């Protein structure tokens, strides 16, 4: 198609255009051709991508890990459901409030606990998640207790398909904000902090303040994701937000590839869709002789840890690193697997 290093030929550009168009069609057109149940699942994938990006801000940019992300997402979900169905507020106010609450709780929790980092911070978030699960989400007047809280779809977006496009637009907004934030002084400082906190501090970057800022951004994104999740299901129950969900969030972000937005989006979407794919693949469930049939809701938590351990020990760059050649090619460079076998990104960047 083209000489290595040179510009692609006209045919080369056409091929790249065709692949881009096919990818866009997959995301934009295919859902319009499927039934409501399928579209509902795709919307879930888009929302998971937002949650994955939220965790990426924390885990990828600051190296701190949250094992209590189900609490952030859950608080977003319950806030929006409460605003819309109890207070009679419009959907936009519910979403905005969920974002604010997500950021606010991250600010409070971070201000108290970010003096400890690494393993201890992970432990604090784990305890916070469990506390939210057992206490906050059981407050009858706010969450409806075990009965749950209705969260109707917003006006103009009452069909599953329209709501899908709304979530897709918001995912685009999150990606854009994430990208712009990383270009600001704070974003560049975060990168420096992650590379080497001591050197960054020597050059005047306030490690604690920037880490806290990233935590707040992550909380706000998670709140948004939670609110969208609630309105996608039109109902929110506390049992959804359990420890297993928090671990799936971490796993999908790590497998996606830290600090690689495309990878994180793909990894998250894969986990949201894994049950769906599994259903398509095994019409009557996977029945291994001597074992019980694997129900599709358990698929993410069964394959997740296996993929995680594989990623950690073999491919620390995750999905993001595997798709690098394709991304480079789409931008007009020759297709090559060079540079992709060395780990560009490691989970090991996470510091203790």
């Amino acid at each position, binding site marked *: 198609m083209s000489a290595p290093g040179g510009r692609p030929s006209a045919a080369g550009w056409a091929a790249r255009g065709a692949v881009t168009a096919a990818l866009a069609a997959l995301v934009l057109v295919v859902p319009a051709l499927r039934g409501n149940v399928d579209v509902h699942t795709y919307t879930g994938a888009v929302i998971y991508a937002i949650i994955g990006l939220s965790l990426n801000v924390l885990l990828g940019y600051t190296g701190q890990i949250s094992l209590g992300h189900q609490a952030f997402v859950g608080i977003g979900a319950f806030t929006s459901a409460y605003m819309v169905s109890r207070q009679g507020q419009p959907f936009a106010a519910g979403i905005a409030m969920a974002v604010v609450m997500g950021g606010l709780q991250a600010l409070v929790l971070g201000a108290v*606990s970010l003096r400890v980092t690494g*393993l201890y911070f992970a432990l604090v978030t784990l*305890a916070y998640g*469990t506390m939210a699960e*057992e206490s906050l989400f059981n407050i009858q007047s706010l969450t409806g207790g075990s009965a749950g809280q209705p969260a109707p779809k917003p006006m103009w977006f009452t069909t599953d398909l329209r709501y899908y496009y709304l979530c897709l637009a918001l995912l685009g907004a999150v990606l854009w904000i994430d990208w712009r934030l990383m270009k600001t002084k704070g974003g560049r400082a975060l990168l420096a902090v992650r590379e080497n906190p001591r050197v960054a501090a020597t050059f005047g970057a306030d490690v604690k303040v920037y880490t806290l800022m990233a935590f707040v951004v992550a909380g706000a994104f998670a709140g948004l994701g939670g609110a969208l999740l609630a309105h996608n299901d039109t109902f929110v129950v506390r049992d959804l937000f359990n420890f297993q969900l928090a671990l799936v969030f971490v*796993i999908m972000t790590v497998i996606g590839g830290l600090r690689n937005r495309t990878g994180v989006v793909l990894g998250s979407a894969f986990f949201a869709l894994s049950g769906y794919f599994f259903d398509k693949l095994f019409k009557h469930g996977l029945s291994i002789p001597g074992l019980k049939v694997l129900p599709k809701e358990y698929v993410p*938590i069964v394959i997740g*840890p296996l993929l995680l351990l594989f990623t950690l020990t073999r491919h620390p760059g995750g999905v993001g690193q595997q798709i690098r050649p394709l991304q480079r090619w789409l931008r007009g460079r020759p297709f090559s697997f060079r540079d992709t076998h060395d780990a560009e990104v490691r989970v090991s960047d996470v510091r203790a």
Partner: protein
Amino acid sequence: MNSHVLAQALVIGVITGAGYGLVALGLVLIHKSSGVFNFAQGEFGTVAVYTLYRVHDKIGVPLLPAMLVGLLASVAMALATERVIVRRLFDAPRVTLLVATAGVSLLAISLELWLGEARLRFIQPALGRLDRLSVFSVQVSDQRLLVLAALALLAVLLGLFFSRTNLGLAILAVSQEPVATELMGISVRRLSSFIWGLTGLLAGIAGMLTAPVVGSFGPGFLTFNALIPGFTGAVLGGMNSLPGAFLGGIVVGVAQSLAVSSPAFHSIPGAGAVMVFVLLLAVLTVRPQGLLGKA
């Protein structure tokens, strides 16, 4: 809170806390030797309980041999975790290992959900009588007495192991000065398997002692019941002292039990979890070296 409720909360708290203490002990042992927070610790214990249930209630093997099989299962799981994951990631940063052990924990929970179904299983206490003994006019069930006796025996055995045997002394040495121990010709890596096996054993015992007291168990039983309190206990003990971890576990158990039974907290759902979270935050921010540690 009247004195009877207080006494009851204290007695129950100490016994529950002893279970946390066992988990905390394992967490500290692993943290000191491998430098990682082992989030799979709870699941080592749950696997022992599931195996015990299978072998005893389903196949009909008598209780004591069934318990041995259960303990073998948890030790095997701990050894497998060490061999397959920890050893491979020996030089990786510690948070990577943390994510990996959390993955092991999720894998175990998902397998229990899949193969054991999501429901709770009820477990008969080994001893049925409730009224044999009372402490501060609090009735202590035989099952709780059994737990206490087992824990006391275990404490003595562990004490002897760590003070009298070469292996125990080597483990203590590794947990205090890994580099110096290596220089003295003791293989830290070889001891690592042994320590993981030992913590598997401790977790298995903790699971088997806790399950009949709670009365039922389900997927992720010990992770949800004892992992965070265990960690909090270990942090209370400064994350480096074995007796400190055990005592820390008991403190957490008592604090949690007081919170649950105190009338002031009746309106708060999940008061126990709130208490543990507040305790953890308080220790980490005010006294990160632990209650017994030097400043």
